[in-house]
């Protein structure tokens, strides 16, 4: 009887159960952390380099000619104190207007630039 069973067991072993998929490997926690850290460092370096490159490129590119000429024409040392303007308005209205116009070149939003939204509105 035992022999009888053994032969049948051998017959059953001729059948092989189908294999499961390969075991999904799990990364050890320390390895996982290092990988995340390295990925974060790469992203930070990439972003930093991008900003630096964009900034330096912008700084080194020459300003448009019209902007350069107006900037040179305006006195940089103009002092816009309330007392100074008040005195000019009383004593010399013409110079007061000229001073306001000159100060507006540097202290107020410009609307004479090539890409100025204010300029477009002024034209309308």
């Amino acid at each position: 009887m035992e022999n009888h069973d053994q032969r049948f067991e051998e017959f059953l072993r001729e059948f092989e159960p189908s294999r499961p998929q390969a075991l999904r490997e799990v990364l050890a926690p320390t390895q996982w952390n290092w990988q995340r850290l390295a990925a974060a460092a790469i992203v930070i370096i990439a972003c930093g380099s991008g900003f630096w490159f964009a900034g330096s490129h912008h700084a080194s590119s020459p300003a448009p000619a019209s902007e350069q000429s107006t900037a040179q024409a305006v006195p940089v040392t103009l002092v816009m104190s309330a007392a100074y303007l008040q005195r000019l308005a009383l004593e010399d209205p013409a110079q007061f207007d000229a001073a306001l116009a000159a100060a507006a070149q540097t202290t107020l939003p410009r609307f004479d630039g090539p890409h100025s939204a204010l300029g477009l509105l002024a034209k309308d």
Partner: protein
Amino acid sequence: MTPNRLAPETVRQLYERHGPALLAYARSFAADRSHAEDAVQQVFLKLLRGETATPDAPLAYLYRAVRNTALNSRRTTKRDASFDTAERWFSHSGGNQEAALALQSSLAELPDEQREVVIMRIWSGLTLDEIATATGAPLNTVASRYRYALDKLRERLKPYRTSGATEN
């Protein structure tokens, strides 16, 4: 203090050696093959991650854990195990696919407790003692289940056995 855990290499060896039998075992409880695969993978991944302390009898533990996980999955999906004959659980070393399908349907017809004893014994090589430990059933009960299961399978598979292997 971290609990003892099986070495990853040991876990992989267990998977290589017993994965197929465990998959067939899980397949008889899970709703379909993908759920059975998930159940087997979950149990091994817990061992790999060290989420389970080293079991005294790893193989017995694996069978118990796979069975519980597959049954939980079946409860979650609210689907009974369906034994689709288009899905191959077994292949025959001599290429007799008809016999493989007959074995598959014969196993599916066995009661759960008889089927598990056969799978553990034939395709995982456990002794009846080890099966008793794994299932928590008395040894005599396990031996009876095995005998009944073999008798049924022998009867069902008689047409597929070669004349030399057929006993009278």
